């Protein structure tokens, strides 16, 4: 037994060492220099987009590793809340869809106040007074149309309620996508649209997927002919030759700014700040446009096919009622569509 037990002990020690090595949470590699280290980013941006942004970021900051977790906004927030429950929030930076989401995080006192040096050129309305979050781009929600399937002109949301579009509609779920939740809040509070709009969509058997990616794929691929979706997905698809076009609805557009914010509990605040600075910098904004979004900074051109903010009719409501009503809105939506 002696020999075998010796072997066992050795093996166990070896195993423990191996485990310890591979379970090193990279974010605990603390380093005083702001140019070195790693951060954990939770984002609702599509994978390809965030990877391109990180690659560009690393050109300027090659020593900062960015580990990211990607999911729908609502799921990200739940994850952050769950982590808060268990005591450790793993995320350092959040980059998710809309203001209202950040407002609720702010009221839970989870955000760090940081006034970036790159705020010049960004309109005041795109960040909060306490500097806990800043908008990074402009994303509008509108209608995507597959022109091979639907030949006629579509101009408004109301048109989607026509019975001839039964089974041809697709939309993202407010239970997953922050932008969709934001839209739900605003549209239901806009006279002339309201909850009736959603009930009408239900009558036309609208497919409620998860995120905007699914909607875009579905319409591009011809599963359905029409969808409610964020502009960049539709416009990028149209630009690469898919038979789709993006419509800014006549009732107005819903605009979110995909803000970025740093969590108060972050142990990598310096590195996180560098990341925020980069996103808001000229290079970062040029990269944003290059990837395919309307940049938020003045002086940086929007890419082809995108309207600039001046030309968009913006629908909005007061932020406070949006924030307070979000949970109730989601529940009502869930009840309606179950």
């Amino acid at each position: 037994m002696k020999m075998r037990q010796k072997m066992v002990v050795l093996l166990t020690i070896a195993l423990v060492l191996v485990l310890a090595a591979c379970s090193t949470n990279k974010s605990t590699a603390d380093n005083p220099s702001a140019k070195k280290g790693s951060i954990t980013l939770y984002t609702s941006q599509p994978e390809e987009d965030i990877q391109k942004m990180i690659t560009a970021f690393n050109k300027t900051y090659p020593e900062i590793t960015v580990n990211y977790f990607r999911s729908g906004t609502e799921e990200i927030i739940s994850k952050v809340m769950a982590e808060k429950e268990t005591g450790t929030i793993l995320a350092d930076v959040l980059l998710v869809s809309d203001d209202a989401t950040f407002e609720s995080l702010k009221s839970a006192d989870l955000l760090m106040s940081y006034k970036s040096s790159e705020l010049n050129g960004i309109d005041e309305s795109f960040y909060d007074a306490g500097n806990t979050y800043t908008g990074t781009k402009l994303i509008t929600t509108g209608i995507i149309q597959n022109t091979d399937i639907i030949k006629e002109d579509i101009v408004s949301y109301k048109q989607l309620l026509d019975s001839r579009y039964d089974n041809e509609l697709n939309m993202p779920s407010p239970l997953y996508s922050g932008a969709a939740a934001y839209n739900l809040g605003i549209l239901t509070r806009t006279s002339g649209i309201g909850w009736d709009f959603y009930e009408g969509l239900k009558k036309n058997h609208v497919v409620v997927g998860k995120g905007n990616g699914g909607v875009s794929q579905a319409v591009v691929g011809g599963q359905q002919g029409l969808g409610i979706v964020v502009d960049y997905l539709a416009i990028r698809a149209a630009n690469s030759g898919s038979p789709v076009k993006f419509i800014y609805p006549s009732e107005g557009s819903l605009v979110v700014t995909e803000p970025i914010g740093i969590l108060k509990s972050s142990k990598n605040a310096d590195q996180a700040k560098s990341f925020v600075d980069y996103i808001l910098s000229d290079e970062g904004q040029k990269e944003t446009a290059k990837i395919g979004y309307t940049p938020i900074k003045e002086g940086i051109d929007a890419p082809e096919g995108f309207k600039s903010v001046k030309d968009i009719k913006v629908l909005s409501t007061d932020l406070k009622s949006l924030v307070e009503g979000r949970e109730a809105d989601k529940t009502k939506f869930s009840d309606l569509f179950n």
Partner: protein
Amino acid sequence: MIHLKSGSRRVLVVLVVCIVFILPLMTLAIRSFQSNAGFSYENYALLLSQSRTHQAIVNTLLVALISSLIATAGGVLVAVLVAYTNIPGKRWIELCVLSPMVVPSYVIALAYTTLFANRGLINQALVHWGLQRINVYSFQSIILVIALCNIPIVYMQCIDALRKVPLEAEWASLSSGHGRLKTLVSINLAQIWPTIQGALLLSFLAALDNFSVPALLGITSNIPMLSTYIYEKAIGFGPSAFQQAAALAMILSSLVMVVLFLQFLVSRKKFYTKSVLAVSEVRMKFSKRGKWMMLFVLVPVFFGIYLLPILTMVMASFSRTFGMVASLSEFSLKNYEFVLTSITTRSAFFNSLWFALISVAVCLVFASMFAYWRVRRPQDKELGVVEKFIAVPYALPGIVLALAMIFFWSIVPGVYGSTLILLIAYVTRYMILQIKGSTSAFRGLHPELEEAGISAGRNRFSQWIRIIIPLTLKPIMASSAIIFISVFTEVTLSSLLAAANSKTVGLSIFSLQQAGNYNQSYAFSALIILFILFIYSVFLIIRKISVHRRKQHDINP
């Protein structure tokens, strides 16, 4: 520690096992009764009053019942065909039927979504002929895909049992004047009836545990099932969500307990048979015409069920836009480019690989020690109870275990959110598989063989290398192979336990699909299938070498 007294060693083992395998689940149970007001039934009361919960329970039970009936019928049928008849191409049939053991269920579900895409070939044809489109995101699809994934369970159990029905038992029936079919039903199937019942229950359990198929096909079409409902609650907002998830997990677990109890009853009813060797003689011969007719029916069926969906998925993975590759102009390697260069998919691949290797190693070491102990000292009765404890995390659904892991291991700092918790979860879940494999391997090893080695003067170490390992390698490696593939393709535990730096293959494919990046999920799935096939061939080669070496050393028990 080297010379622990046997008694204290046993206490230590029991303690460790309880902590690792049982306490997490107790924590889960306790949490389910927690609410803001302290200990109460509130969570259960609330959930059980909601129609969504009723729906989830009903759906889960229906899916489990119908899919296991279908899986059992299909599995027995194919097993009879392969074990008893002379149809050609048995190897291919077996390969197809067993493919869900290697191809993860979410890949199969994905493949079917491509095959039955709304504007895919099949649905286009149906519409053309004036028929209804087939919606793959439906209740029926979930049942059928899960059934397909569980047929291997039934097949493996039954084929061995079928082969062990003695030829003479059939002859005794035929000689009395009964026909071939009656003999098959009254003698063969009747004799393996307990095995069939056991297989039915096993596939029922597998269906209860299945998360990825309802997740892929049921979430967007709003078909609530307990496993995905628990997931939704766990990632949902709010403090009570976690407790509610715990309560749902307990409900699911109680269903599992009932089935486990039924299993226990059935397993005691095994009919006495003298220990028989399996016979592979053909018992039911088809005529030449009969053989061709069977082929005519079987080939398209098997092709359609097993190969066509995968082919469709692979073709779609080469498409620039969503949908099938309509023409060459749509052909693109873009998706593969993304998968092979993206940080997420690459790290997911290596994470899963790493997890799989470490899990296998840890399980091998501890399970082998435990199994050796168990077999050589049958007088330590408590080891039997300990083994049952270790089996619990495997018997319970994965999503329940994941939740338990979160509740329990978040007490220890640095575990939740790191790769460690996922590793602990894998080892907790799959340890029992290695124990079972190693136990049967050691049981087959006669103690006299080892004693002969000792009496010949070799020391313990060379005894292990020369005698024990070569003789037990095959069954032990079989378990390791299963654990490797299970951990590598796993998605249920990852869905709740993976952190930003520990994404896994299964989760990656799942997230890509949920995010709408279908083509990329197809590309990744195709690559993973290739990799699994590669690993499988490696294992086959290792086995061949071990058998060859055994023959060389001429050690034959």
